[in-house]
């Protein structure tokens, strides 16, 4: 038998198993170590000294961490809500409206933040917001919310649009046939069927916002640390297992959200 007649099945290729294991180790060993050492009794990131909740307690007692964590959560909540609302409207306009001139451009513009290097967006926002600050004198948290909402839009947009595209458009026609006005058809047919997509979009946007360092680092005002920027700041000074504990909680939160997102999408 020659190689050409053999079916190409990638998981039967020699070395596939080894490679897979290597990749999984590379991805998950560091995270596992981080979680394990978050339970370390000793103040060491390398030498194990027995199990303890000590660093979780320390993190809980730490006002800075708590402030940063709550700031991250409400920031992600606000930003994801705004982004999801905008993304839902954009998705409906781009899938349900009549095709219009420049629609491809609109797609590209909506998805642009996925392609633009984050540091470019960050610097651009820094300059733009500096300009607004000079003009208005306002220095609050709205800059962070606005920035996060903006770069979360494409993440929220993708699952919502996918859901709308897989939805049978004749259902809306059927609703109109049965005397539903466009608004009633939207509320009674489109929206209930779109919910899983909207929630998925919201959660994706939420996780993305929660995780952001680059943009936040550039535009936050003094004392406006989010959890990731706080942790980054801590790492620069001294390595405390406290950061491990916070990271572990952070990891757990993301896993829960993404798992929820996965099941939600699978259920349709």
């Amino acid at each position, binding site marked *: 038998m020659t190689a050409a007649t053999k079916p190409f099945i990638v998981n039967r290729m020699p070395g596939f198993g080894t490679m897979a294991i290597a990749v999984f180790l590379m991805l998950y060993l560091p995270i596992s170590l981080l979680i394990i050492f978050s339970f370390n009794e000793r103040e060491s990131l390398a030498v194990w000294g027995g199990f303890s909740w000590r660093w979780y307690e320390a993190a809980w007692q730490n006002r800075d961490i708590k402030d940063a964590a709550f700031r991250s959560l409400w920031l992600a909540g606000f930003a994801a809500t705004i982004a999801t609302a905008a993304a839902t409207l954009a998705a409906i306009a781009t899938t349900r409206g009549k095709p219009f001139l420049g629609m491809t451009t609109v797609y590209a513009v909506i998805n642009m933040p996925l392609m633009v290097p984050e540091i470019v967006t960050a610097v651009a926002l820094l300059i733009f917001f500096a300009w607004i600050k000079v003009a208005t004198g306002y220095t609050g948290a709205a800059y962070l919310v606005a920035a996060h909402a903006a770069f979360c839009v494409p993440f929220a947009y993708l699952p919502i649009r996918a859901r709308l595209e897989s939805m*049978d458009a*004749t*259902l809306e*026609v*059927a*609703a*109109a*046939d*049965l*005397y*539903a*006005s466009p608004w*009633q*058809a939207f509320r*009674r*047919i489109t929206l*209930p*069927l779109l919910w899983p997509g909207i929630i998925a979009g919201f959660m994706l946007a939420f996780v993305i916002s929660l995780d952001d360092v680059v943009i936040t680092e550039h535009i936050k005002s003094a004392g406006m640390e989010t959890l990731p920027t706080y942790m980054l700041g801590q790492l620069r000074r001294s390595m405390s297992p406290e950061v491990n504990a916070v990271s572990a909680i952070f990891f757990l939160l993301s896993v829960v959200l993404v798992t929820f997102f996965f099941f939600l999408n699978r259920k349709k």
Partner: protein
Amino acid sequence: MVSAAAVEAKNVTKIFGVGQDGVRALDRVSVTIRENEFFTLLGPSGCGKTTLLRLIAGFDFPTEGEILLYGQDIAPLPPYKRPVNTVFQNYSLFPHMTVGQNIGFGLEMLGKPKAEVDARVTEMLRLVRMEELRNRKTSQISGGQQQRVALARALAPQPKVLLLDEPLSALDYKLRKDMQIELKRLQNETGITFIFVTHDQEEALTMSDRIAVMSKGHILQVGSPREIYDHPAERFVANFIGETNFLKGDVAGIAGGKADVRLAGGTAVAATLPEGFAPNGGVTVVIRPEHAQVAPAGGRATLNGTVENVVYFGTDTHIHLRLDEGGEFIVRQQNSRDRPVTVVQGDKAGVLIGDNVAQVLRD
């Protein structure tokens, strides 16, 4: 009894796209659909039948012309303001609602009180014989049941006209047969005007009060199934519905809606003329295979030829003849014990054509 016109299309043209690329899906179509009738739009795909249905429903708007519903021009109204409901080809049931909620949706949108909606849903479920499935999700019922829910949902608001867009095409043969009878029953019981779109001639012939045969954006002929089948006025109609023999001939005389047509073989037949058509010279005459009989060659026979093929179909037998003057002719004879088909391949045979069976085409 002469009924009022339920739907009237007047010179309706629908062009999709613009300029040179525009597709003329309907070209100055005029038709009147009477109250309480089962009216079928029959034609191959792309003939414009679904377009006409969508214009009546309001999913599309005519480029030109008027659509009247009981005398009122509804062409500019959106679908949700038209007292017309549709049964969709793929049913389009709302997947997040139960059977009962689906059926009640139209009435609810019309703002009817809950008690009235519930009572009507019960009544509709009884009408389509599905009382026990009221609280099921639409994904938990069979295709035939979904079909009946779609019907009940469209009938529940008591529309003035029910539009059906090839609703039986997704069902298997046996179920389709049952649904044909069911649809006819529903139409009789509700007294609602049905406009049914199909490409299936058998479906059209069995259910309709009247049929409009469509091709390439035009309505070619409107008539009862019997008129359409026995007296096709156009070559397309004769060809599309059933099997037909085409014979060339010359008009020798016209009297009382009939033409005396001299066929190429020399014999003459009395053939019905399409309304308002008085030809002169060469015409084409059509004769259905079951309206002719095989007879001994010569003698009284209208046509003579040689048997080329005898095909047995169980209920009947098709005898293919090559005519002496050229051309093929098919006779369909019912298989009966007392009158078996005796001719075999290679025999000389004649064909008897009775009065009132030949039809002149308008071409």
